[in-house]
């Protein structure tokens, strides 16, 4: 027999599960709908009442990938831009975050504030300055131009995220290494980085996601050479008509790399997300 406590907790669990399921359904519905739409013909997409039983067609995927408005080369562009941005961000942000977390830099707080302050400007306010700067450098519609612009967002964000992870590592661990005559760099490499692996994984995901999903700068600063998939997808929303099924197919294809990376890093993310919560905010 269950006692009162068990019964109460069972009831609470049931309630929590229901709430979680409802929230999950709300979140998943658009995705499910997009999947269904991507498998229908254009005339079925708009049918009312919607047919839930239909013969799935894969033509939309073929059109999205190989058709008149193929997203194939744009996918490759997105991979190049997002991967390079992520790699450079991590390579630069890890030492920077370490410095902010550990070194007694002059004006550390001020520098930290300015790093964060760059995140306070609404991105749309930066479109024109960036356009003019890149134009002067002849970097409009180039990979280096797009990546440098993305770095200006991802670096401050990554540094601040990583600082909080690094501050959580007990100083004693590092002290032991330093006493054994390890250099700062060695300490960082052998002691700190293994400890913040989870944090780095989280940062990678967020930076990659942001670069992958970015649209505003991609459309204004890119062009024929650098046209990420977010921009290319718009080709299905033409002036004449919206090709819903092909748009849905393209969107799902474009989602795939992110989903794969997400699943691969899920373990690290969950770990990374809970670190701060369990240990508290460090000593900022």
């Amino acid at each position, binding site marked *: 027999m269950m006692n009162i406590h068990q019964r109460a907790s069972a009831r609470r669990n049931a309630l929590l599960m229901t709430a979680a399921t409802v929230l999950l359904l709300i979140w998943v519905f658009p995705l499910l709908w997009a999947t269904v739409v991507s498998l229908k013909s254009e005339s079925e997409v708009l049918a009312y009442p919607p047919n839930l039983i239909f013969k799935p067609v894969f033509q939309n995927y073929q059109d999205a990938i190989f*058709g008149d408005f*193929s997203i194939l*080369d744009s996918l490759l562009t997105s991979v190049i831009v997002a991967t390079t941005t992520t790699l450079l961000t991590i390579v630069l942000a890890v030492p920077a975050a370490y410095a902010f977390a550990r070194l007694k830099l002059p004006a550390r707080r001020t520098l930290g504030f300015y790093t964060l302050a760059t995140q306070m400007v609404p991105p749309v306010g930066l479109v024109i300055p960036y356009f003019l700067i890149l*134009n002067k450098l002849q970097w409009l519609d180039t990979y280096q131009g797009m990546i440098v612009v993305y770095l200006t967002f991802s670096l401050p964000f990554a540094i601040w995220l990583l600082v909080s992870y690094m501050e959580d590592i007990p100083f004693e661990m590092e002290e032991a290494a330093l006493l054994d005559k390890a250099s700062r760099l060695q300490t960082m490499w052998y002691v700190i980085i293994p400890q913040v692996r989870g944090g780095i994984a989280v940062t990678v995901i967020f930076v990659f996601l942001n670069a992958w999903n970015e649209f505003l700068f991609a*459309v204004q600063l890119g062009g024929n050479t650098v046209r990420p998939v977010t921009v290319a997808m718009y080709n299905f*929303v033409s*002036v004449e008509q*919206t090709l819903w099924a092909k748009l849905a197919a393209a969107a799902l294809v474009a989602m795939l790399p992110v989903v794969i990376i997400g699943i691969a890093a899920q373990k690290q993310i969950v770990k990374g997300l809970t670190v701060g919560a369990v240990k508290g905010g460090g000593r900022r």
Partner: protein
Amino acid sequence: MPKNSNDRTLFDKFNVSRRTAVKTALAGAATLAAPGLMIGRAHAAGQYMDLGSFQGAGIDWRMAEGEEITIAVIPAGYFKNLEEVMPDFRTLTGINARLEMIPPGQIRQKAVLDLSSKTGTYASHAADPMYYQLYVANGWIDPLDDYLNNDKLTDNAWFDYEDIQPGHRGATSVDGVPYGIPFDGEATIQIYRKDVYDAAGIGPADTLEQYASNAAKVHDPDNRLWGCALRGFRGAGQNMYIYPSIFKAYGGEWFDGDRVTVDTPEALGALEYYVSLLNKYAPAGVENWNWPDIADAFGQGTVASYIDAHGSAAVVANPEKSKVVGKIGFARWPKGPSGKRVTSIWNWSFPINGALSEKQKHATWLFNQWAGSREVQVATTYAFPGAYKRTGANRASLWKDPKFLELMSQFGDNYVEATTESFANDTDPDWRPRLPQWPAVGDTMATAIQAALVGQATPAAALKEAQEKIDKILKG
């Protein structure tokens, strides 16, 4: 339109054709190549036109050989067709011209950014006719009469600028001076369900009043058939695309001297008509409907009539998407109380960016002239080898060409007549208020129209507020 197999060829745009197969193979190969090489999509080398007919023009097509120019366009079937035949331009002129596709929502900002910062990124772009006043006021683009009247640059006996639809020429000129060469344009026409109208014993409306009574007669929302729909979505190119025609048909005038007037009795009559018509007979949510939504609903058979661009026939008569193929009739805009019918004069045209070098300008002019020429118009409409054929041919002579008309008449009853008569009789260059502040004015009007439609304000109050805002915009 009979559903026989011949008709399919017009529309099976997405079936895998030989061209697509070649492209697929090339796209695959391109993916393996370095990203830098992936500019533009690969084309099978081929001649789409007889280059000899261009040589007939008494100009030196190779005067800007070796130049590189980029032209911004939007992803639309008509520009896709143009891109397809562009290798011929490169062969003819030795100019490396390429099109860049920019989403329609962004092309205006991107063009303004480029023009205002004088970067010369886009030698030309598919321009919104309503933006010419802004461009010209700032001196961002070149007047084209210098090019048209220079016999080294233009052989008008061959190019025949005057053959381009007068409404479209008017829309791309400022104070009588041409600034853009129209490439693809439209007229707005009445599109209705012939079967539904026949069953109700009515024909297409001749007057706006009759348009409303027609809607009332067939309106049957219980059986999912609504009387009519017009663009309700807020935007300078959405509800402020359809309202101006009604405004003009009610006898409205945008200008009183230098002042823009939007709260006259005629303006109020037009807005009251629009609001009452849509509230009574349009599906719920029409305030969020743009042209694709309307065409989709009509194609699904839930809307009995709408008034929009003649090009939307290609969507509602496409058997892949539409359930009402063969049941569609067309007519001109209904007359308003002033006796006028006023169509849209919307078109995409090519200006010349003033920030270019002399030689680049010549290269751009050659491109504009080439794209607007009869030869290229033919090559991208009925003579186009692909399945999609353009409907927005820019030339009056093409709208008399039996081959073009044969293709157009497949859309349904009275299509060619309604469209050509609209082009000939129903255009008005001042269909919308043309002034440099158009983006802000258009947006203000769009907000007012929608506010009245959803009942946030009475039509009179909405127009009064719009008038005050516009007065401020024009003063500042």
